[in-house]
């Protein structure tokens, strides 16, 4: 904000007032507004402006879902015989109560990599990893969608091929851990991707291998919940590793998850920051569904992670 502190954003209005007006502009209007003049463009595109909006309570959460597409429509009845599903991104905006579709990632115009992971981070959506939708080979692609500008950019590739890893974000960085490598070996590695620097850095190792684990951020910690080792295929563990952002260290916590139960897309944050299992919250949530926390709605987790063809709110 400082660079433009003393220039008028709106002629004849004091800077503060001009800033107040633009701060209240809904994100969907940012792209057009950034074409008005240089000062607006500089303001709307800078990271500090996002934080300013957030601090003054003018950002809001949306839910992003990976959904199966069929003939350009979201399919209700699954694939037809012989047809492989393709996946796209849909957004639910709880303020306008509207669903919308995000443009396809440029390199995958016909559908996202299968099992790719999503993370929401400072007004951006990060899509990473997954399998090539045609060859089923694991990919290292990273794409970043800026909601304000409604455009995709390519991020730096993931440093290694991994699938079914945990993901979480905090303060402009996306954390990943666990999953398995291209030879189906469960992993105990963790990495952090800095969006602004477009850079990957390795984290210390987890306390154990955690394939098909689930990630969730609670307070200042990235929880990597459950998962299993290479030798214990499918034997989901009850423990979690928690990465403290401040300390830069993992700590192991026992007994936070029901052993044997797959945590994928089912881990949520309940009251007092405790872990909850969505599928147990309400009988109306059918088995195999997944949830994301959206404010105080009993569904979801920020610009979060989910996979569902029929999600009914």
């Amino acid at each position, binding site marked *: 904000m400082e660079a433009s502190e003393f220039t008028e954003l709106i002629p*004849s209005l004091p800077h503060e007032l001009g800033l107040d007006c633009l701060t209240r*502009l809904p994100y969907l*209007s940012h*792209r057009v507004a950034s074409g008005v*003049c*240089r*000062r607006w463009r500089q303001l709307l595109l800078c990271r500090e402006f996002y934080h300013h909006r957030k601090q003054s309570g003018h950002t809001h959460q949306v839910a992003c879902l990976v959904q199966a597409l069929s003939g350009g429509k979201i399919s209700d009845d699954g694939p037809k015989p012989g047809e492989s599903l393709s996946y796209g991104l849909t957004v639910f905006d709880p303020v306008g109560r509207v669903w919308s579709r995000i443009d396809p990632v440029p390199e995958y115009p016909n559908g996202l990599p299968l099992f790719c992971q999503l993370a929401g981070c400072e007004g951006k959506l990060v899509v990473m990893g997954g399998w090539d939708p045609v060859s089923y080979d694991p990919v290292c692609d990273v794409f970043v969608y800026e909601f304000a500008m409604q455009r995709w950019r390519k991020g730096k590739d993931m440093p290694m091929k991994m699938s079914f890893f945990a993901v979480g974000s905090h303060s402009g960085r996306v954390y990943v851990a666990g999953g398995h490598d291209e030879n189906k070996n469960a992993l105990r590695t963790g990495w952090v991707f800095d969006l602004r620097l477009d850079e990957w850095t390795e984290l210390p190792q987890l306390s154990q291998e955690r394939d098909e684990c689930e990630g969730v951020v609670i307070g200042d910690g990235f929880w990597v919940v459950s998962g299993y080792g290479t030798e214990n295929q499918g034997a989901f563990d009850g423990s979690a590793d928690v990465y403290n952002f401040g300390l830069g260290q993992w700590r192991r916590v026992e007994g936070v998850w029901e052993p044997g139960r797959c945590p994928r897309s089912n881990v949520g944050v309940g009251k007092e920051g405790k872990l909850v299992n969505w599928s147990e919250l309400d009988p109306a949530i059918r088995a195999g569904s997944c949830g994301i926390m959206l404010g105080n709605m009993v569904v979801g987790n920020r610009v979060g992670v989910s996979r569902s063809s029929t999600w009914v709110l």
Partner: protein
Amino acid sequence: MSKLGQAKRIIFLKTADGQLFEVDEPVAMEFEIVKSFFDENEDAADDTVVPLPNVSAEPLAGIIEFCKAHVEFRANGAAGKDEVKKFNAEYIKEKSNEQLKELILAANYLNIKEMLDFLTETIANRLKNKSVEYVRAFFGIENDFTPQEEEAVRKEYEWAFEGVDED
């Protein structure tokens, strides 16, 4: 300040264009600038006229109308209710963009936080779904992009014009 049993106190305000306004004390005290005037001049006589050299009569009348209604809403415990939203919507509906700008400048000078929040929100709402040209004209903003930059920027938001309002 008014005490129980006394008649309602009236505050006198004089605008830049020389008009004298008589405003009920609770309404005038919504204006931070008036409030601090009396805080700093505790001995001010009851008929003291507060000069407002940066505000003219038209926006001041509009501001008094708004603050009066909101003081009453608060007194009736209606703050934040639909009634208030309805009043705000009606209030702003008839205001032109020019009037809106005058109001915001005046409210800024008088330092009325609640009204400023409402007015900046209104401006943001009026900019929604509008074209770049509309926004520039609305505020009198000069296009300072070079033709090459303009071209590049335009490409970026071009398809965002779908669904943009005609005006």
